[in-house]
């Protein structure tokens, strides 16, 4: 797979970077809490929890490094190979879940599936901001999926 690129404005990059700093520390907890870990064997459960936590830590570092390195206008994130692209795709999913659980867990699933329609002025600013970022992370993810898809499946 060739190098893949994700492009955004410098302003979007700055806003998303700031949000990542806030949300990343909680992402591991969200990941473990969401998982249905088998509880019949303590050793397995412990391994399971450690694996999910370690993975979440790696994802937070990956996102932080990628956004920090995306300088200039427009800001470009360059993913050099398939492994990097898939890891980044997965990390974006993690941060979207963290936002969902921590900021707008009160929004019903069916409404969240149409997140672009949710920019309601009645929502508190903090929630509107988080929703906008959630959608931006989603756009980056969709851009990446279309690039991976066109190379892998066409």
């Amino acid at each position, binding site marked *: 797979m060739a190098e893949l690129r994700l492009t955004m404005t410098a302003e979007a990059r700055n806003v998303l970077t700031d949000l990542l700093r806030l949300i990343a520390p909680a992402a591991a907890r969200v*990941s473990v809490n*969401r*998982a*249905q870990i*088998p509880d019949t064997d303590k050793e*397995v459960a412990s391994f*399971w929890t450690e*694996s*999910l936590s370690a*993975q979440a830590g790696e994802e937070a570092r990956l996102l932080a490094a990628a956004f920090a390195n995306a300088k200039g206008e427009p800001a470009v994130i360059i993913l050099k190979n398939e492994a990097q692209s*898939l890891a980044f*795709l*997965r990390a974006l*999913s*993690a941060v*979207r*879940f963290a936002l*969902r659980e921590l900021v707008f867990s009160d929004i019903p*699933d*069916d409404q*969240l*599936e149409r997140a672009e329609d949710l920019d309601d002025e009645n929502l508190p600013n903090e929630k509107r901001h988080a929703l906008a970022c959630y959608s931006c992370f*989603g756009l980056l*993810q*969709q851009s990446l*999926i*279309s690039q*991976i*898809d066109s190379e*892998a*499946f066409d």
Partner: protein
Amino acid sequence: MAKPKIKPEIGTEKVVSASPQWNVVVLNDPVNFQGYVIVVFVNVLGISHTQAEKFMLKVHSEGRATVWTGERERAEMIVLELQQWHLSAKLEKNG
């Protein structure tokens, strides 16, 4: 004296797998995109894009799909891997 011929007993025996089978079940979620779920299925389950799309559509329309069935240890690893990709996956005993 001739030894009596021993007639071999011939019977049938039902062969049953010793270990119970476990299902890897994926549940629908409102966060992951359909395209993302397909990419995950292809990478984790090693199936074709077409089969992955079928599973994804089943999850989307029915709320859940069994994507793999087999021995517990392997099923656990697949569930863990799917959870590492942030899909809502769980283990269920088959039958």
